[in-house]
């Protein structure tokens, strides 16, 4: 454990006191809430933000460690927990609070899944333009707390840029709101950005407002098979520079190509999105460019994206890492990762390289992190077995003093996700 002082405190955790203090009707069976093989003593599924706040206050007063969870798709992101006594299930907070299609804004509770959110928006021909791994089981709270994005990032904004405001329950039981429901707002600090990517360590997101977008009138995908990773990288960058009506340009290593059902060969997967005339024309121009560069173009469907997206998700036997590198380094990092046994793919516009392996140990991950850092990038461990997350800092080098000061100000008792976040707070 990274922080022995904190772990010694939990001996006095007043479980029975908290059990009695839980808001009526919120206690639920603990069995579904194991994390890293550990089962909590209590589980609660609150139905209102106020109940979340009450549970947090009662927990912090009693020295109870709380682990918020929604879709349970990212529980192996971060360091292993120091303590885990209460599972805080956010899925009871699943309402659409206000949807204003003509303003392109929506306000929802944090336990709502992306699937439900997209369904609500779809009725008005709109969507939240995000595609985080592994799929739309991700809750709104999870989307923000992990700040994950997918293939669209770089062509479209990320969740962090679409969130207009949020309501957060703090460890001491205060309910606070930041931002608002309008699409442009600079009143005060963007606290919703502070909580985006904070894994709940500074408070539990209970609701958020988003700027949404009209769904594109059409979309289509194209697979471009290449002779080498270098050729795939060059083709992907050339496509990016054409400024076509695209929503994703992703280079695939041979291993990942195989994993999604293709032949084991480097490739570029492109998604065109926009008005019909634009996607047709853009696809034609992409095919022409591919031909000139010796690649084979064929049309594809959404299923490849779905499979790729799910490969970014966690499983008990895999390691998933994500690097951020310059666009010009994406293909090289994909190639290196594949040579180390990873299935790897890279989104060129965001410079995001995802890598997945079932037998990656510390040396290989460190080698890839070193490569990413050599081009002024970073590597984050998105999910891994517990042992590996004890060995290696999932977040890499980080600003320590500010992180510590923030944790002390927002959760002095170490109530929420103790030990899991950056620098082990």
């Amino acid at each position, binding site marked *: 454990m990274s922080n022995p002082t904190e772990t010694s405190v939990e001996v006095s955790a007043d479980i029975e006191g908290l059990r009695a203090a839980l808001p009526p009707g919120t206690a639920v069976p603990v069995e579904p809430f194991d994390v890293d093989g550990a089962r909590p003593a209590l589980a609660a599924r609150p139905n209102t933000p106020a109940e979340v706040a009450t549970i947090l206050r009662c927990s912090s007063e009693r020295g109870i460690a709380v682990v918020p969870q929604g879709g349970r798709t990212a529980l192996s992101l971060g360091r292993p927990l120091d303590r885990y006594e209460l599972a805080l299930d956010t899925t009871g907070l699943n309402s659409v609070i206000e949807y204003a299609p003509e303003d392109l804004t929506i306000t929802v509770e944090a336990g709502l899944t992306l699937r439900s959110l997209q369904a609500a928006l779809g009725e008005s021909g709109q969507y939240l333009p995000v595609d985080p791994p592994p799929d739309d089981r991700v809750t709104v709270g999870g989307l923000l707390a992990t700040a994950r994005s997918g293939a669209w990032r770089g062509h479209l904004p990320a969740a962090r840029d679409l969130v207009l405001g949020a309501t957060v329950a703090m460890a001491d039981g205060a309910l606070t709101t930041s931002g608002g429901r309008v699409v442009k707002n*600079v009143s005060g600090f963007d*606290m919703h950005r*502070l909580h985006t990517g904070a894994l709940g*360590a500074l408070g539990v997101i209970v609701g958020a407002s988003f700027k949404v977008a009209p769904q594109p009138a059409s979309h289509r995908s194209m697979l471009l098979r290449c002779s080498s990773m270098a050729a795939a990288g060059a083709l992907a960058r050339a496509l990016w520079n054409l*400024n076509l009506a695209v929503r994703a340009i992703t280079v695939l290593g041979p291993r990942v190509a195989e994993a999604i059902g293709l032949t084991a060969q480097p490739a570029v997967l492109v998604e065109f999105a926009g008005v019909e005339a634009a996607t047709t024309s853009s696809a034609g121009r992409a095919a022409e460019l591919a031909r000139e560069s010796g690649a084979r173009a064929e049309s594809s469907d959404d299923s490849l994206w779905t499979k790729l997206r799910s490969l970014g998700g966690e499983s008990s036997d895999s390691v998933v890492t994500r690097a951020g590198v*310059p666009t010009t380094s994406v293909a090289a990092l994909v190639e290196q990762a594949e040579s180390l046994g990873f299935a790897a793919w890279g989104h060129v516009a965001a410079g995001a390289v995802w890598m997945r392996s079932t037998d990656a140990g510390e040396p290989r991950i460190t080698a890839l992190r070193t490569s990413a850092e050599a081009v002024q990038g970073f590597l984050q461990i998105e999910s891994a077995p517990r042992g590996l997350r004890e060995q290696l800092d999932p977040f890499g080098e980080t600003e320590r003093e*500010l992180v510590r000061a923030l944790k002390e100000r927002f959760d002095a008792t170490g109530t929420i996700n103790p030990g899991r976040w950056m620098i082990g707070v």
Partner: protein
Amino acid sequence: MTSTEISPLVRDLQAALGADLVLYAPEDLLAYEYDASIEHAVPDAVVLPVNTEQVAVAVRIADHYGVPVVPRGSGTGFAGGALAVQGGVLVVLTGMNQIREIDADNRIAVVEPGLINLQLQEALVPYGLVYAPDPSSQRICTIGGNVGTNSGGPHTLAHGSTVNHILGMEIVLPGGRVIWLGGRQVDAPGVDLRGVFVGSEGTLGIVTAICVRLVRKNEAIRTMLAVFDTIDDASEAVSEVIRRRVVPMAMEMLDQETIQVVEPRVHAGYPLDAGAVLLIEVEGTVETVAHDAAVVVAACESQRAREVRIAEEESEREALWEGRKSAIGALGSTSPAIYLLDGVVPRTRLPQVLRQVLERSAAAGFRCANMFHAGDGNLHPTILFDPQEEGATERVLALGGEIMQLCVEAGGSITGEHGVGLEKRSYMSWIFSAADLEAMDRVRIAFDPAGLFNPCKILPTGHGCAQGHFEPLKQHLQTTGVYV
């Protein structure tokens, strides 16, 4: 002042930075007494650093003496964010104005905070790249200032505010430690301190280098002028465009009052008898632009547009934009004084709120001109008045407060892009609870435990900060001039 009268603070600053980078004589400090707001304050010293180390050293010296530190760029802020209201050291960053790097292949640039926004745009032209944030003051405002206030601009509608375009920053923290927040790629691991820092108006540190994200210039662009008989129709047209699933790059509105002032001076091509015009720009591939422009024309015509004109030549496009970007200056030249407001409402509430703004202005006896970012619901009511007229200043201030209240009641915000600064700190409690503000204060204290960085800004409380800011504001408005 003779050298023997130099304060220990100034003496130490001079020793560390060199005498020519430190101003302290009253006549030199006066130049830094104002920004573009209606208030003023004199710092104890002004430093003009040319590198990060000098900023850090100045901050350490200020910290040693326990005096405030206030960063400043061009001083174009409307909310008083760059004023040293409790004295101390004003760190003027206009000397740090270099473009350190343009990496066109990876679409990033690293710049210094004093670089003028437009100079970055011009440097990017040969690469076919664009830095998306384009505040109307881009000819003089700095990138560092844009970071401080999370600036917007007409193209925020499609691209988002400044924060979406900042990848990482070098920061001198309170106390003088130098760190990087974020990096050279999007979505750096963990907590997004970069995202919190942008828009913190100099309260959390001083930015000394900025890695910005660039976008490629689109292959096609079309700028249209839609002419309406009434503001209501123009507002409805904005909603109709969105309803037809097109989000243009920009949708700007100018009302009759503004048109009649701007057109004779700028010759932008706005019809003098129009009730309102919309300036709408769409970008993308050739096919996208053709489609979107057709939708925009149809949407405007469905809302009784008298005419929708498409700029055929680049010069025509530039003229249309010139009218918009010089509107404030034109208004300023036509009235003894103007007071520019910045508020946001949900886009669909625009017709109603605009109607109320005009009614309240008329009832208070003032002309009110409106030119604003209609697509974002970001209003800029501009009140024209004569401060020599008995009681006018008080009524203008009351009206400004009323208009902000209208925005809040409509579900909006007290500022969309100008910032809170000094001007609006007392309005913060209209939209945030005590707990909300206290949470913001926790961030501030985590960065600045001593509370020395840009005191009395953003948050409505602070040690030694006078609660009311209306008295100096009133005094200032009572002198003739342009206050925007």
